[in-house]
């Protein structure tokens, strides 16, 4: 059975500032009981049911992974690996958490493992990015902003980065983040607080240099 996608009424009620950001995004919610039904069918070997789950969630997982690792090739590869692992491990999905949270957990484990194994990355350039020829000012500003955000996130340890992305961009509750990361709610609270403090320092330095 295929569920219906509909605009999320919660997003529509978002605060003014959040609504501005929401204009550039599309929010969708999917009936979770429907997800469980599809997952149940997939557990019985129904590939079409799993195909539907992939169709629903691959974009969400890709965005999460891209924001965490800031590399499209890595994000693609890890998204694929997440769904392969999900298919392999479907028997382990008991429905205690939502299917979406379960997927986030698989992706988070993959991502944290990979980021922890990676050599310390080259620091992003500290220089002001140069405007490209004929680049509109707004586009240039957006690029600079994106670089500053990338630098703020890249400076965080993998677990703090994942928690912050899940909170700010994926808009998961602390409880859902705790499930996705396999940690207690108090531990997630601490992770998020430390991540926000570290991101604030990085952004403050960019502000001092007039980048943002």
């Amino acid at each position, binding site marked *: 059975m295929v569920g219906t996608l509909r605009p999320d009424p919660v997003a529509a009620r978002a605060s003014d500032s959040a609504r501005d950001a929401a204009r550039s995004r599309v929010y969708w919610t999917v009936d979770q009981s429907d997800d469980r039904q599809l997952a149940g069918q997939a*557990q019985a070997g129904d590939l079409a049911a799993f195909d539907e789950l992939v169709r629903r969630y691959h974009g969400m997982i*890709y*965005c999460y992974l891209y924001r965490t690792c800031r590399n499209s090739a890595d994000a693609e590869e890890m998204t694929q690996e997440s769904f*392969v692992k999900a298919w*392999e491990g479907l028997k382990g999905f008991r429905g205690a958490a939502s299917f979406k949270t379960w997927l986030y957990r698989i992706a988070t484990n993959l991502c944290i493992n990979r980021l922890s194994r990676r050599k310390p990355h080259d620091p992003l350039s500290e220089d002001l990015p140069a405007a490209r020829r004929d680049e509109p000012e707004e586009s240039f500003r957006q690029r600079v902003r994106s670089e500053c955000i990338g630098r703020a996130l890249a400076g965080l340890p993998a677990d703090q980065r994942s928690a912050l992305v899940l909170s700010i961009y994926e808009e998961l509750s602390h409880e859902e983040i705790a499930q996705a990361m396999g940690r207690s709610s108090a531990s997630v609270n601490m992770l*998020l607080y430390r991540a926000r403090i570290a991101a604030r320092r990085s952004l403050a330095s960019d502000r001092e240099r007039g980048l*943002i």
Partner: protein
Amino acid sequence: MKCDKARMLLTGPADAAEVETARKHVAGCDECRRETAQLAADAEFLRRDGKPEVPSYLGTRIMAEIRQRRAQPGPCFGPDRAVARLTALGLVAAGIWLGVALGRGMTGPQQSLPERMAQLGVDLPNGEDK
């Protein structure tokens, strides 16, 4: 209440009574007020980052990979893989147990040397059979 704890309580879920204490602390602490306002502003700034573009082919690529692995002969792939692994593990354990049991059966029960010699009817030199 210390500043750090108050700030943390106000940025995450917490017990209502603790949040109230934290609010009171922040209301009377200029530095905490500035810090919590800055944290909220920074979160808003981060939120303004554009949404990454999802490659249009990604869903198809994922399903192609799963179909390909599923079609491959050899190790079972799919939701039944965990069951298959457990079964294989069980078979290996049963094989080892059987091997050990058969080995013991061939050599007979563990006996001391005098017992074994007595069973075979061999007389031991004086003093050695005690």
